[in-house]
């Protein structure tokens, strides 16, 4: 079957790195070509978010690397997993000058993160936790 852990794309863009950098790292840029609305606190550890209004979907990102104008990296949740799932993929954009333009590489990695045994216990624990909490709620309501 083959599990892809990373997705990599390289595109040549006929605009200088500074302009590409601005499109990747500003709320105006991200909210135009990527999502429909965006906010970003451009520093390692800073929060960013993008909203796709049509899909009613918001992605929460955490800025990890900011090396203007060559490397911009962030982590975000894995598509299809619940928001509270701790596992995230890492996205890194690398900008290299190519003539008058830019060679832009995007690498997203971490799709193959495995639930370790500890994780599995946590998940099973969660399920049981819900059953227990609901039971306690019922007891509480019955006692009141």
């Amino acid at each position, binding site marked *: *079957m083959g*599990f892809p852990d990373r997705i990599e794309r390289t595109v040549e*863009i006929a*605009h200088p790195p500074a302009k590409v950098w601005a499109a990747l790292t500003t709320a105006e*840029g991200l909210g135009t070509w990527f999502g429909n609305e965006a906010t970003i606190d451009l520093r390692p550890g800073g929060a960013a978010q993008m909203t796709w209004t049509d899909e009613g979907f918001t992605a929460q990102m955490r800025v990890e690397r900011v090396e203007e104008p060559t490397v911009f990296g962030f982590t975000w949740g894995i598509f299809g997993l619940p928001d509270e799932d701790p596992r995230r993929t890492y996205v890194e954009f690398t900008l290299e000058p190519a003539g008058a333009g830019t060679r832009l590489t995007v690498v997203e990695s971490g799709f*193959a993160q495995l639930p370790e045994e500890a994780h599995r216990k946590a998940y*099973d624990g969660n399920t049981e936790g819900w059953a227990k909490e609901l039971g306690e709620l019922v007891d509480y309501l019955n006692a009141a």
Partner: protein
Amino acid sequence: MRPDSEAVAEQVFIALADPTRRAILAALAEGGPATATDLAGRLPITRQAIAKHLALLSDAGLVTAEPGERRRVRYRLRSAPMRVAQQFLAALARDWDGPLNALKEHLDAT
């Protein structure tokens, strides 16, 4: 990714390829742990067929059998294998070609 996770995902996809097993897993996800008899009451499938599929799902590690009331076995969905399979699907669903084309168009337009 460790090789065993591929085996785990394969079990999930095999399980999901069958409409009866999909219905059983969906019923367990929606309503929580249930016995074969409970499921037979909710699904248009005989109890015998449900029991056969539950045994298969249990062998594959997708459900766990636990003691229920009156010594009847209840089956509980195990979510961990689903998450492994979900990560495979997540990689397929993540689209970078679309956004990168949008980026190019955005830069050309500004």
